[in-house]
């Protein structure tokens, strides 16, 4: 055996050869396997009765969607697509964060179910090459709508559209547009955008914080300083706080990452150490750390986007500024049927019940709840004007104006 080993070494039959042989066998097996079952992976079901399903589904929209009558007529009359829609969403984080990623995925899933559409999602893609790959994968599989659910996906989505690499698919991306601003990215029939008018719900959240604080110190813990929606929510929250409780102080901290719960907890604990007894946390995965710190210290926590009541063992969740993406996605699908996709931005706001406050914690006194409800109605009626920042400098200017800095 000893001589065999030395012989083998001498002829150079080594690791490389052995491993290369295994890999070649695996390649052959894989290719053979693929061709023997390729249809299984890529089959698309096209059936006539889908048109009927869509018609019925759209007819059920009359309560919430203004264009329903037209849409129903169009779909029923022409059967625009005449087949099952395929929709997909790509998200940067994990779809179990009770926030941005999970709400995005679940909202599209809900809408897809309603429309009888085939649904798929890709999570944990981060930024850089993986989300682009996922988008291209959906496009090559002929998905009708792919949602790029992150501000950071805009540039490569635009590039794909510009260079004509989206085939027959349509892409929906996040925009910063507010009513009255230019809707710069939309490309009819190809690229749609959706954006968030967040102030009308976060102002009452700030108002609630102002009424609930006993120490007169309230904190905002924001995951990143560049997120335009966080910036706008923080501004509205601060204005609401000032209106409810002019004596209250506001602490403002930026964690620096969407997905760093440990750091989120640490920074929140620091604010609590300074006396804050209501924390407004904005931060996808980071929110878990913020909530943890609030739970440990027994202080109120106001969340954003998702509903964390299921994991709120100690009942510290005061409320949450909920974002229901299904409002935008539903309208996008209707517009695809209608041939109207990509002609305008889809706004999610308090007005179309896409952004609103979660039912308040049962421990909130009735008079406080009533006041918050009144404030919400006033905002919706346009009686209260909320200043909207467009960058972090604007936010700090608002803080200075309010006397918080």
């Amino acid at each position, binding site marked *: 055996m000893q001589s065999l080993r030395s012989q083998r070494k*001498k002829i150079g039959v080594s690791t490389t050869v052995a491993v290369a042989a295994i890999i070649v066998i695996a390649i052959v097996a894989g290719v053979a396997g*693929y061709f023997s079952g390729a249809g299984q992976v890529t089959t698309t079901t096209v059936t006539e009765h889908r048109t009927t399903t869509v018609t019925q589904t759209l007819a059920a929209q009359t309560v919430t969607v203004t264009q329903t009558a037209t849409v129903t007529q169009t779909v029923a009359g022409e059967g625009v697509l005449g087949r099952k829609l395929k929709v997909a969403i790509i998200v940067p984080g994990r779809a179990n964060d009770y926030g941005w990623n999970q709400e995005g995925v679940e909202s599209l899933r809900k809408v897809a179910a309603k429309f009888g559409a085939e649904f798929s999602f890709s999570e944990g893609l981060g930024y850089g090459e993986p989300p682009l790959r996922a988008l291209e994968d959906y496009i090559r599989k002929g998905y009708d709508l792919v949602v790029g659910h992150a501000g950071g996906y805009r*540039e490569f989505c635009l590039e794909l559209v510009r260079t004509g690499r989206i085939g027959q698919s349509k892409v929906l991306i996040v925009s910063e547009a507010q009513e009255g601003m230019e809707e710069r990215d939309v490309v009819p029939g190809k690229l749609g955008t959706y954006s968030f008018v967040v102030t009308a719900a976060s102002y009452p959240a700030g108002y609630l914080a102002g009424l609930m604080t006993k120490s007169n110190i309230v904190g905002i813990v924001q995951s990143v300083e560049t997120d335009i929606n966080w910036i706008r929510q923080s501004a509205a929250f601060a204005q609401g706080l000032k209106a409810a409780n002019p004596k209250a102080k506001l602490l403002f901290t930026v964690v620096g990452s969407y997905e760093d719960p440990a750091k989120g907890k640490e920074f929140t604990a620091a604010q609590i150490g300074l006396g804050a007894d209501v924390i407004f946390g904005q931060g996808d995965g980071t929110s878990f750390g913020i909530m943890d710190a609030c739970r440990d210290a027994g202080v109120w926590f106001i969340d954003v986007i998702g509903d964390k009541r299921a994991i709120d063992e100690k009942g510290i969740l005061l409320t949450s500024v909920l974002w229901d993406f299904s409002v935008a996605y539903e309208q996008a699908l209707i517009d695809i049927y209608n041939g109207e996709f990509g002609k305008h931005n889809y706004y999610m706001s308090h007005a179309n019940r896409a952004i609103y406050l979660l039912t308040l914690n049962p421990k909130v006194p009735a008079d406080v709840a009533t006041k918050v409800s009144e404030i919400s109605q006033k905002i919706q009626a346009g009686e209260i004007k909320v200043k909207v920042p467009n960058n972090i400098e604007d936010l700090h200017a608002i803080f200075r104006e309010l006397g918080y800095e």
Partner: protein
Amino acid sequence: MKNKKDLVELGIEKLVGKFGLTNLLVSSIKPALSTIIGIVGGMAAGSIVLLFTGFDPVYVYYTIFAQAWGTSFGISKMSITMMPLLIIGVGLLFCFKAGTWNIGAQGQMILGALFANIAGYGLGPLPAPILIPIVLIASVVGGILWILPAAVMKAKWGINEVVTTMLFNFLAIFLLMYLVKSPLRYPQEYHPITQPIYHSAQLPMLPGIPIHTGLLIGLVLSIFTYIFFAKTTLGFQFRIIGSNIKAARYCGLHIPYLIFYSLTISGAICGLAGGVQLSGTMRFLDPDWVPWYGFQAVPLVFLARLNALALIPFSFFFASLLIGGDLMHRVVGLPVFFVDVIFGLMLILFAAAESIRYLRLKKRKER
């Protein structure tokens, strides 16, 4: 030497005849046993995880490899993903062979990409034959700059390079965040990204296939590295200090210089991986971009048993798992993170097999 020559002349067929096919296969596979145990065992252990979570392991693995190897899209994406793994793997080889540890490939890749981005936009729309080499050289400079402090500290004062190179990863991540959010921010984007590089700074595609030329850079580098370690004096000196530093000192080799060179070359190549990734695939940088290739390539190098040529099939295999896993999760519905579980299991089993091999050798020596 005479014996070797004789054996080559005998040829494989005669060898098979002399020793028997089974014996020859066994003796060939034995040195790679830890690697094979790692890969096969990792996938087998992954099957148990799949069974417990209600998925059919055969269908999952079939889908992974069918998606990666059985579609032109999979092959193209897999080749693109293989590129950074291969280039970083080669970069790491230079220090691992020399007995030094560069755990900062991630940071060097970030700096390489940053420098490439600055050059690819800052110099204006120059013609591609001028701009592309400049972009790649810039990325090499970025990688060198990022490993230089660790290399100097190790060579001059013997400060542990594992700690310094690893800490420089974090510095790179935060530097990227700062630069992308402030001075390098593309003003037309509300989400912070850098200014995209000009199209003339992008690596061209290989003729007829949607794979950029970065893959060729990786393949050429690994072949060059193999020759470097097999045939050059410097390569031989790296191997000596990596195998036995006392013997190297006794031979009169200038160890601090060799350590410095090994780390610097390693950083340069890892930086190049960042430049190729930016120029070939990404075009711009996001503040939250964290290239995990820097860490994924570390076990790859050991699974390839520090062999530059073996890195090619191994990076191919790893890229297949990564891309196949990514494409599979959209077909099967299994979370993409399962691929990370397989990688982890492979490493654990590889490490266990290596430990057993080491203990057996030790026992044999004692006897």
